[in-house]
Structure formats: structure tokens, C-alpha cells
């Protein structure tokens, strides 16, 4: 390391990811309980997104621990989209309520919930999203770089 500090280990990265996903799972549950007590639909929508992010990031951690790198990367795009929803709900609470109560067909028709529109509304990066589509959000042959036999992976990894 150029600055002389201790290098960050994979164990440290894994532990921090576990703490962050654990927070999202726990506080997501707290948010759900509070929202349902208050019958607050907007808060309930945010709680569900938080629980989704907790589940996704905890699963990414488990998949990486078992060397399922492609599947872990594929979940990354879902995390991006769910976080964009949370950001969108913060600025547009009425749309949180719509998201919670709308049918699948109504959501498909809602132009503001399309991925590009959500990214534009929340200032999220198109490049980051595109990279995650390539990594596993969409099935592409380049995903082989994350699969067993890849030149990026060690033997037996």
C-alpha cells in the first residue's frame, strides 16, 4: 500500500458486508413493524425495500463465501434498483404508496418506475447500472469471467 497503512483484507470486507446487511435486515423489520402500527403506507414501502436490500446483500455475501461469484454479481443490479427506489420514495412519497398498492400491470405502465427514468430521477449512474447488467443482470457470455474456469479465478476456486 502506498500510504503505509495496513491493507484491507477480504475477511474485513466480508465482516463489514455482514454488518451492513444485518443492519438492513434488522432495521427493515423495525421499519415494517412501525409502519404497520401507524398504518403508514409510504413508510411500509420503504421498509419493504430495506428488507429486500438486506436479503440481497446478505445473499451476495453467502454466495461469495461459496465461490458463486456470478450469482453474487447478478444480485448487484437488484441492489442498485432497490436503492434507487428508496431514493425516489424520499423525494416522491406519494409514489411510494402507489408502488406499494399498484398491481403488476399498473407498475409496468408507470413510466416513472422504468429503470432509466428511476436512474434519471435519482441521479444514479447509467454506467454503473450498465456494468452490473453485463456482470449478471443480463445473461451475457462475458459472464464466463466470473465462472469456474475463468482466467480471473485461481485453480480450484
Amino acid at each position, binding site marked *: *500500500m*502506498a500510504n503505509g*497503512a495496513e*491493507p*484491507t483484507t*477480504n475477511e*474485513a*470486507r*466480508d465482516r*463489514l*458486508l455482514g*454488518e*451492513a*446487511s444485518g*443492519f*438492513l435486515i*434488522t*432495521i*427493515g*423489520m*423495525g*421499519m415494517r*413493524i*412501525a409502519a404497520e*402500527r*401507524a398504518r403508514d403506507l409510504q*413508510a411500509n414501502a*420503504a*421498509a419493504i425495500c*430495506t428488507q429486500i*436490500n438486506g436479503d440481497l*446483500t446478505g445473499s*451476495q455475501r453467502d454466495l*461469495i463465501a461459496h465461490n458463486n*461469484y456470478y450469482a*453474487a*454479481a447478478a444480485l*448487484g443490479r437488484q*441492489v*442498485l434498483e432497490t*436503492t434507487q427506489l*428508496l*431514493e425516489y*420514495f*424520499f423525494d416522491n412519497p406519494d409514489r411510494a404508496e402507489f408502488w406499494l398498492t399498484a398491481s403488476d400491470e399498473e407498475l409496468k405502465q408507470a413510466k416513472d418506475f422504468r429503470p432509466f427514468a428511476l436512474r434519471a430521477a435519482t441521479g444514479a449512474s447509467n454506467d*454503473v447500472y450498465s*456494468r452490473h447488467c*453485463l*456482470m449478471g443482470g443480463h445473461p*451475457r457470455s*462475458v*459472464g464466463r*469471467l*466470473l465462472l469456474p474456469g475463468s*482466467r*480471473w*479465478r*485461481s*485453480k480450484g*476456486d
Partner: protein
Amino acid sequence: MAQQGGLIDLTPAGYDIQVDLRALLLADCLQHVYDAVLATIKVMDMKAFEALGPLEDRSVELTSKLVEDLRNWRKDDPLAMVALDLKL
């Protein structure tokens, strides 16, 4: 990114390090869970902590520590600024 025997060499990208794929994936997850945690804190209120009952005070403390730890990670880990790009 060049590859040497299971390690990915980031020297061409300006980083004097070699990393494994697991490190890059964990770092990518941390980059995005950081944003997810901050977005959650922005939309939630204290009632969510209160709903955790006896865990309320401890949860508030742990949340502050988590945000600090994530900020320190972004500052200290060179991989916090590296994007895993599969474009050939």
C-alpha cells in the same frame, strides 16, 4: 486489468496492487451496500428503532458505528474506488 495466476493486476489502472476476484466482488458489494445504508437512514425515522424494543439504544449505537466503519472503509481501501468492468 491484467491477470497473473489467479490474481488481477491493477497496476495499469494506477494502483500498485494485485487483487483476487473475491476482493473485487466484496468491494463492489460494499460500494453499493454503503449507498443502500445511507438511503435507508434518509427515509427511516426513530419509530423504526423504537419498534425494536429493548434493542433500541444498542441499535442506534450500532448504526452510527456502521456508518463510520463504512466511511473508513471507503477512505482506506483502494478497491473502494475500483469498478469491476467485464467489457472486453
